[in-house]
């Protein structure tokens, strides 16, 4: 009576009819995997965008000199820039040229709208480097003493709502991924139960010949794993095509903000791993379902 819990071999796999791909389960899994990969990609892309934005502007401040007298404004701007260049903890100081300021105002004032009649503030872009947020107070105090007309704006202040929005979207993406996993598991449970009912006669015969629950469960596990592999592969390919298409459209927009939501290479590996995880999850869920159902039989 050797090997009671023996693995059934290749020939034994025929014990269940090979009706693979005939049922809806591979296609349902394909749809689930398609949506899961897209949701995961969105979450990862948003995370990348948030990190990119923070690195790009989070440690920066903008200094505006708003005196209406152009001469005073110019003198204050030069003094403020000089002060900032000589401060510890300031990595880079760059004064925006009038042309750059005009370009920034163009959407509101139109081309050439920012003429000499309007008192346009002088602007200085200051990069405080990594961890610069903690030094903003020192910079503000120093500026207030040396150039009272200077106003300092932290870029992270207007990034805050955007950051919170991105964070919310990331959580939403994670919740979607979890819901897709739950839905896929439920699909596998239903498919396993249906398969069990369909093949109940064969299973009873196998049991009466001494097949163990694990032997029977392996037959179903294998079938469901193949269905999940097919569905997972189709879903991943579909999602990858959609992502490439969206990537091309985003690149065509030329927007730095939207373009920063690109997927890093590690994220692609994670996305490719999702179908593999889906197969493993399907196998485990199928095994658990079948063993539970068989446990209720004698």
């Amino acid at each position, binding site marked *: *009576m*050797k*090997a*009671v819990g*023996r693995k*059934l*071999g290749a*020939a*034994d796999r*025929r*014990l269940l*009819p090979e009706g693979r791909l005939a049922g809806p389960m591979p296609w349902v899994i394909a749809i689930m995997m398609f949506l899961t990969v897209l949701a995961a990609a969105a979450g990862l892309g948003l995370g990348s965008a948030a990190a990119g934005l923070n690195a790009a502007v989070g440690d920066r401040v903008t200094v505006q000199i708003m005196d209406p007298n152009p001469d005073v404004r110019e003198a204050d701007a030069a003094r403020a820039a000089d002060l900032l260049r000589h401060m510890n903890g300031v990595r880079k100081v760059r004064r925006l040229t009038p042309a750059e300021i005009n370009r920034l105002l163009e959407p509101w004032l139109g081309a050439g709208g920012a003429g000499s009649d309007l008192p346009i503030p002088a602007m200085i872009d200051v990069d405080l480097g990594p961890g610069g947020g903690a030094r903003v107070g020192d910079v503000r105090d120093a500026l207030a003493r040396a150039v009272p007309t200077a106003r300092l704006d932290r870029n992270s202040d207007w990034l805050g709502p955007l950051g919170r929005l991105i964070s919310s979207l990331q959580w939403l993406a994670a919740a979607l991924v979890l819901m897709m996993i739950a839905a896929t598991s439920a699909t596998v449970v239903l498919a396993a139960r249906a398969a069990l009912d369909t093949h109940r*006669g*064969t299973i*009873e*015969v*196998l*049991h*009466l*010949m*001494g*097949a*163990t*629950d694990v*032997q029977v469960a392996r037959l179903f596990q294998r079938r469901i794993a193949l269905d999940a592999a097919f569905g997972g592969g189709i879903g991943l390919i579909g999602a990858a095509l959609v992502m490439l298409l969206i990537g091309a459209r985003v690149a065509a927009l030329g927007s730095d903000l939207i373009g920063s939501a690109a997927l890093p290479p590690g994220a692609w590996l994670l996305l490719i791993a999702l179908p593999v995880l889906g197969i493993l999850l399907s196998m485990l869920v199928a095994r658990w379902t079948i063993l539970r159902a068989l*446990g209720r039989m*004698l």
Partner: protein
Amino acid sequence: MRTFWVVYVTLPGMRWEPGGTGAEAVLRAAETIVQFDNVGLRYGTGAETLSDLSFSLRQGGFYFLTGPSGAGKTSLLKLLYLAQRPSRGLIRLFGEDIVTMPRRRLPGFRRRIGVVFQDFRLVTHLSAFDNVALPLRVAGVEEKDLKAPVKEMLAWVGLGHRATARPATLSGGEQQRVAIARAVIARPDILVADEPTGNVDPEMAKRLLHLFDSLNGLGTTVVVATHDLHLISSIGRSEMLRLDRGQLLDPTGALRNPPRRTDA
């Protein structure tokens, strides 16, 4: 083939039991392979299908189970081949209480029991060869070791030429022979057959009975449920269990030996 059979021939239900001298205990255990004590079976909340069954079967015995339709023959066989547990009473199989036995241990016992179902219960999408090979595959026999015995068994039941045929393409008699080949291929310790010759011609019935007889000669305990009196009388050393309305008509076993044919 030979290796597999040798393995199973060395697996009689011999188990030392306390009481008496060691030799007596071994002898007793070797003789009694099935023990029913006050067994009752009830499906759901209905009346008892089987009541107060108490009997024992010897290892190597040949038993016919008879009785009118609805007497409970199939239910009794289900208890024997572990498709049901009794509602009450004690059943010992191969010296072990199988009523309270955890279900994870049942497969090991089931592999020692060959069953010919009344409705054959062949796996419809498998060929005759694969159906017959099923018990060997479940038991873990390698593919290279099972081809020869399965072919030989199919040839023995006269279906060597139908090895690749699916059950749907076989006649009732052919399906029954496949079912019988499947039941005996693993050389079980107990062979349980429910009307095994119901769909075959007299000549084939004789051949199949000869197969059962040969197995019995090798030590397999055979239990056959049948209405066929000719069948019963053709095995000289057989005993008879008679059931009626779920009860054994001969609880003492005094009338177990059926009348013999004198012209045989």
